[in-house]
């Protein structure tokens, strides 16, 4: 089990960026197909230089407390950064999870993928002119003995 310190407790007591953004520019969903857990990330983004910047971010979780803590930390890191930096953050998060037991990794992976879906959805909406809400399914499983083989991408 994750060791709990005062910083983690502070996130549990008051998860940062928890809630939704009405009329968000983009909504991305991370889903655990095994148990139905979901994380929904809302972003507002603005053009900055040759990229976009996440101006505002919020998330909701139909999931366990560990996922809520991961959402609080990851969205904090993503607020105010460019898409490129947010992608680095996602890649770093997913990389760090490679050595973590699957049942623990799933909680952070689902948040990282929801953020990825929000960014990709934003860009696809821009390209197609039609609002896209993407759902990315996690690879890790909350049960250590069962694994999903592929990241699936669905359009809502």
């Amino acid at each position: 089990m994750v060791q709990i310190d005062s910083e983690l407790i502070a996130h549990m007591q008051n998860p940062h960026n928890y809630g939704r953004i009405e009329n968000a520019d983009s909504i991305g969903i991370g889903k655990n197909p095994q148990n139905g857990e979901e994380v929904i990330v809302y972003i507002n983004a603005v053009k900055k230089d040759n990229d976009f910047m996440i101006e505002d971010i919020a998330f909701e979780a139909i999931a366990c407390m560990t996922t809520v803590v991961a959402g609080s930390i990851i969205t904090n890191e993503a607020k105010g950064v460019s898409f490129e930096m947010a992608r680095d953050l996602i890649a770093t998060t997913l990389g760090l999870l490679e050595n973590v037991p699957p049942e623990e990794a799933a909680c952070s992976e689902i948040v990282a993928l929801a953020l990825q879906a929000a960014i990709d959805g934003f860009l696809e909406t821009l390209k197609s002119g039609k609002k896209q809400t993407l759902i990315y399914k996690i690879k890790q499983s909350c049960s250590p003995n069962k694994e999903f083989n592929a990241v699936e991408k669905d359009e809502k």
Partner: protein
Amino acid sequence: MTKVFVKVHELWLEMLMASFMSQNLESKRNLNDFSDILFRHFTWIERLLIKEGIEYDYNRDQIPIKVENLKVILQDLMRRINEVLLMLALLSDDALANRIKTDLEYMLFVLEKMPDEKVTAFNMNRKYKNITLSDEATDAFTLFLFEESYKEYELIMIYNYLKAHSNEDYLNKIFQILVDESFFHLKNFGEMMAQMGILGVPRVIHKSLYQIEDVVEFLKNGIDEELAAKEECKNLSKAVAKDSIELAKFFDFINYQENYHIALMKDALQYYENKGLNV
């Protein structure tokens, strides 16, 4: 009217949290009673919204409650009460608005006189009474309290929503018992969190959790979740047994209470299936 509904929701939760913070028995009892009354206001306004065909949900803002002195949260509660009082004119039912108004005015009167006290509900000492738990058991207990306090709040809102939208007396009796049971658990867990210095307001519930499309499926899953909760209580009871008989007995007690919840949910499930009902 939905704005009043949201504000009363927030006021109810903050009042409940304040009751956990207080260690003065009289203040605690008053705050606890007021939170119960506010929950009833919440349900009455909800009924009015349904009657008038107004769309609503249980979304609300986060509620900051971290204070060092009770007086600070009492001041904030009075600010919120005054805010609701000003908004009552928006309710389409004058009798209901008047009933709420007189309750709120009495609350203001009592809160103003309530003595100040030091609040220790956020000191993160993670000690429950004088019980010494291992680091592992303390972490497990901490996580349990956060998970379960949210879960009980979620269940209160789900069963309350189902009850508000059902005209079946038999089902409503079951839903009300389940709401009451979850309140009892939430209050117990809230008191424990305050003792441990880790009090927090349960997070906002996503509407897909209470605006249920398939109640039969929800009840089936709910029964499985209750069975899992029983297991968790059993494990926690074992984990703390060598350090504290009192805590072990408490978890056994919660474990056995789940049997009753499961029986009620099975009853509701059978009723739905027999009558061919679903939302």
